[in-house]
């Protein structure tokens, strides 16, 4: 699950890609640090790229300070979270295909429109060691049946020019998520997996329901904390802070 150098997260917009990507990057950096402590020779670094050219708000850069605390290099457009809506990509992306000591997470914008940004780096990605994840929340209206999920996979593959290699079950109702919801998502993805041949990489979600679901579904789990916050979830609101 964490062995590829390049990890690209795509999906329907609102599927929770950014939360999954941010938490995945933090996990990657923790694993690299552990590896470094065990063998002095390996010094892997982690970077995360905000490739979202669709969504003007709620972006990777919202979690920047948390990511930087973990020593992660956060690369985002200078226009992210400003008052202009310019779908620009940061030029530093090219560096990451040269600096092989980095493990890289790409947080891509939603739908086929967002996946278009990936196609620009198609050659670089295909000649590298990569995984193209497709994040699904089956409680989202455009991905709530196997047919709609397959349609979304198809248009994202067509737009990015790269085949999706792994599915991620991120089924959730935010803080109202139950283990049953996650299991339901898993079952639907199993159906999609059977028909497309694309395996499920892992399930992600808030720790409590995810671990409960983990007793039923046999896939790796990525417990995530909600790092992209709403204005009323910020200062002094301990109730909504969730430990990773």
């Amino acid at each position, binding site marked *: 699950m964490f062995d590829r150098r390049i990890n690209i997260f795509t999906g329907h917009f609102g599927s929770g890609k950014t939360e999954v990507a941010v938490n995945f990057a933090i996990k990657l950096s923790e694993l690299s640090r552990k590896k470094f402590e065990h063998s002095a020779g390996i010094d892997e670094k982690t970077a995360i790229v905000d490739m979202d050219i669709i969504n*003007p*708000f709620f972006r990777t850069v919202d979690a920047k300070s948390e990511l930087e605390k973990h020593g992660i290099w956060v690369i985002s457009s200078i226009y992210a979270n400003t*008052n202009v809506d310019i779908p620009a990509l940061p030029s530093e992306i090219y560096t990451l295909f040269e600096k092989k000591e980095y493990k890289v997470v790409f947080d891509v914008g939603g739908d086929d429109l967002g996946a278009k940004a990936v196609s620009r780096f198609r050659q670089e990605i295909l000649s590298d060691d990569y995984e193209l994840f497709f994040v699904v929340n089956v*409680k989202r*209206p455009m991905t709530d049946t196997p047919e709609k999920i397959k349609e979304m996979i198809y248009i994202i593959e067509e737009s990015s020019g790269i085949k999706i290699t792994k599915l991620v079950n991120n089924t959730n*109702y935010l803080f109202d998520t139950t283990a049953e919801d996650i299991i339901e998502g898993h079952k639907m993805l199993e159906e999609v997996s059977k028909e497309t041949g694309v395996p499920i990489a892992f399930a992600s979600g808030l720790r409590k329901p995810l671990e409960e679901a983990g007793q039923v579904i046999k896939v790796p789990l990525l417990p995530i904390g909600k790092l992209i916050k*709403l*204005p*009323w979830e*910020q200062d002094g609101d301990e109730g909504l802070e969730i430990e990773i």
Partner: protein
Amino acid sequence: MGEKLLMKGNEVIAEAALRAGCRCYFGYPITPQTEIAHYLAKKMPQVGGTFIQAESEIAAINMVYGAAGAGARVMTSSSSPGISLKQEGISYISGAELPAVIVNIVRCGPGLGGILPAQCDYFQAVKGGGHGDYKMVVLAPSSVQELYELTVEAFNIADRYRILTMIMGDGILGQMMETVEFRDEEEIIKVDKDWATTGTEMKRDHNTITSIYINPEVLEKHNQKLQAKYRKIEENEVRVETFNCDGADIIVAAYGTVARIIKNVIKMAEKEGIKVGLIRPITLWPFPVAAFEKYSEVPKAFLSVELNAGQMVEDVRLAVNGKRPVYFHGRMGGMLPTQKEILDKIKEIVKGD
């Protein structure tokens, strides 16, 4: 309740419109509300409706004028600069007494301003950005669930009174995700649109949709009729949430996104021994005057918190009518007030007198 999904505010507005029987949408893309058009472009053809990306906001509002005149349930959506462009059409539609729904996912101004959340179009919406003595019903939801329920209701209000109804949100509400639970079936009011221009079949006189009245006496009568309708709406359609107001030391007035922040401020203030109430206007017009009158004897003061330079605060002052001081705290440019800064302002007021 029926189907439960995790949706973005903008998507929910679009879905609610479909469920309310809206089969005509005309719009032009602008951040932060483009998801409404995006969603309807996909879904409208599936239900046999009409989706048109117009060549401009001005064209879109005039398409609304035409469709509403023919008796269709019709919607357009935009964000601040686009809503400014629609003002002429809004005035004409109001003059012609046509029902339609307009969504404004407000961004910061003036001018091109920026795409981040703001409430700086309050005056434009409730006092009339277009010309003439007209009113629109203005609904201000503060959650994704409420965006759904109020969008459906907006179509009913529009039809019931032959009036424009506006849903006013901001970028946070439009872009954020929350769980929404849909009803299995919507309560859609059926009105006889015998005024619509749908063809006479040679069986009746033709209907005329117009806002021009050449005879001044007739135009004055038309205006008086409009005003009588607005008084009726003020009597029947006020929506407001009052929270924690009984026994409160100070009452905050806030709507939409800001009201969500205030609810957490109330919890913080409680820990410091200050009881803060909230009056949340859900209809910005008609303004919930009675709710303010009811609590106008609050011991300390009122505080209006807004994402602008002080707009709703004027209506709060009119409603409180000098009985207590009315303070204001606002942020602009896409900046949001933190819970702490609002609490500091409350403490300053409470300790000040």
